[in-house]
């Protein structure tokens, strides 16, 4: 079997030489095509939409359809198109710097997302650790339980939290009935409610990468650490945690990135006074119908998030390096 494979391999350069140049170019093209497909995908679903949003962010708001000007078209020929391009300006970006509202919204969003990410990590790590150390037979069931909430609508699950957190809600009823508190806690419409909502909603995104990092870890490493004189707590920080770091980074980014731009949770649980960039964007777009400014908000948000995404990719590359 192996000798046959060797023969074909050694014979192939000779047969290649016999082929026409055209056939070889064709083969090369098919090879390229496989690489091109993901790039085409990125072009259509990421780059072109981004260019459109970016172009709108450089336009001026107008009472028209679409509600901005200039709407680029080729009716005036090349010269007309170039004239339209000259109308584009960075005014909207200047505007974002002039109103403190936007800056505050960005900062608040990043802080809320960061705090929520840390909280999700603190809740998620013990869950993932417990799952990874559970008997192999029940691990699929546990995994299923983590994924199960995805089967109901995200919106409905967030609504359900209103019923739990409101002053006369389930949580307060329980605490009052058991005598832990005597006054209902005000949780709904506070930042606490936003944290609870984000931790709850994004927990699976934290648990799954952590679980996959912890599950493939060889338990004999912990035994080896103990054998060499390392008590269990110390073994966790010296062996388990560093080895799960790729999972920690992946989980944190999977929570942090969407949490920064989160709209539904602050809107439903955080009430009207919370200031997050997702809500600001929604207001600019739907309440003010100011597409150019909201596009500018979106572009800045994207730039803000590219940094963690790049960190994420570097972490992934490092994880792959470690596997080899």
């Amino acid at each position, binding site marked *: 079997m192996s000798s046959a494979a060797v023969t074909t391999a050694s014979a192939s350069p000779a047969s290649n030489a016999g082929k026409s140049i055209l056939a070889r170019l064709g083969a090369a093209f098919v090879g390229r095509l496989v690489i091109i497909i993901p790039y085409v995908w990125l072009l259509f679903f990421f780059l072109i939409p981004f260019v459109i949003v970016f172009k709108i962010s450089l336009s001026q708001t107008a009472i028209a359809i679409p509600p901005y000007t200039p709407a680029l078209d080729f009716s005036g020929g090349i010269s007309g198109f170039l004239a339209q391009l000259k109308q584009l300006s960075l005014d909207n970006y200047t505007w974002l710097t002039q109103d403190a509202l936007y800056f505050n919204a960005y900062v608040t969003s990043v802080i809320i997302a960061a705090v929520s990410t840390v909280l999700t990590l603190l809740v998620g790590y013990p869950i993932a650790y417990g799952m990874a150390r559970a008997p192999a037979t029940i691990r699929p069931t546990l995994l299923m339980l983590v994924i199960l909430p995805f089967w109901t609508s995200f919106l409905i699950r967030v609504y359900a939290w209103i019923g739990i957190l409101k002053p006369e809600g389930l949580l307060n009823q329980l605490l009052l009935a058991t005598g832990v508190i005597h006054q209902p806690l005000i949780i709904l419409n506070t930042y606490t409610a936003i944290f609870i909502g984000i931790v709850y909603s994004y927990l699976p995104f934290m648990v799954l990468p952590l679980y996959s990092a912890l599950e493939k870890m*060889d338990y004999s490493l912990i*035994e080896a650490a103990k*054998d*060499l004189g390392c008590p269990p707590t110390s073994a966790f920080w010296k*062996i388990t945690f*560093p080895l799960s770091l790729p999972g920690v980074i992946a989980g944190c980014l999977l929570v942090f990135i969407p949490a920064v731009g989160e709209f539904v949770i602050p809107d439903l649980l955080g009430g009207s006074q919370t200031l997050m960039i997702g809500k600001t964007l929604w207001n600019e777009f739907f309440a003010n119908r100011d597409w150019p400014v909201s596009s500018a908000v979106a572009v800045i948000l994207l730039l803000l998030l590219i940094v963690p995404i790049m960190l994420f990719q570097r972490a992934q590359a490092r994880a792959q390096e470690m596997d080899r």
Partner: protein
Amino acid sequence: MKSLGSIRRDFAPWNDPNAKPYIQFDNVTKKFGDFTAVNNLSLTIFEREFFALLGASGCGKSTLLRMLAGFEEPTAGRILLDGQDLRGIPPYRRPVNMMFQSYALFPHMTVENNIAFGLKQDGMPKPEIASRVAEMLKLVKLEQFAKRKPHQLSGGQRQRVALARSVAKRPKVLLLDEPLGALDKKLREETQFELMDLQQNLGLTFVVVTHDQEEAMTMADRIAIIDKGEVMQVATPAEVYEAPGSRFVAGFVGNVNMFEGKIARGEAGSASIDAGNGITIRTDNAGTAGAGTAVTFAIRPEKIKVSSKKPAEAVNAIEGEVYDIAYLGDMTVYHVRLDDGQVVRASTMNAARITEDPLSWNDRAWVSFRPDAGVVLTR
């Protein structure tokens, strides 16, 4: 001077009634649920001994090692190390170190940090750690690989790092779980001798778990043969091979021919065994077995001679037919089918290049052996 096997031992504390045992398993039982992994087992290991636990997989030998390391606690009985009862002492406070079968090298640390790990745990001063690590790297000849990560090393190099890491703390006892299991045959043979040298030079007590009898025979001072959680025999390699205590041990270590029979008559160790079908075996090694006892006569293939004519002086000679011949270069293995159908395996060293009395397939042949060549087993 006569000796069992071909070597003479100067190191034999197990024969000295005054020698103090170093590791003692006292009636140790370990159960996992309903399964009894170790069953009321007692065992004594001496200081500086190279001790092998040999058995098939699942026989409980690894459980013994893990109990010594502290990863498992005995269900009943006690384990003493240098007079101290180990019960309740966690693995990180035991003066033993283990070399894991999977090596268990920390993948995120360099070779030198792996070796230094245990020393740092002990709070050894930095310069001392550095010199100890350098010493260990030199010992396993990996000086130029100090900064590498485990995944950048070959299997043999990883094995050396694991070894260096486990001896770096100078443990009272080094436990080795199938230390050579992942190496290829040639490397394994080289490493066997290196391990023996290392044990000699460091003067440590080694307890090795293995399923490979050749490995155990090569390296160990004494071997404990374990089956179903019980010790079948503890003895030197030569004793295990030449004087097995039971049918199981005789069959487990090396090749053996067994004849079932009854002692026909016996006096002072010598006996005649009636093996049925007119075969009578005369032996000097009947021990205390009296007339009428059902016994097994076990004899190793290399102690049987095969010839085309009945040797004149032979005490034991049985006729049969050559059934199979395997020429292995250094020796030739004959399978001779006796007239009662039993196949006897005999091996002959090819000490000369030319054979005076060549045998071929289906030739009539005689198998013969001396009265002291085999052993009589009653268990």
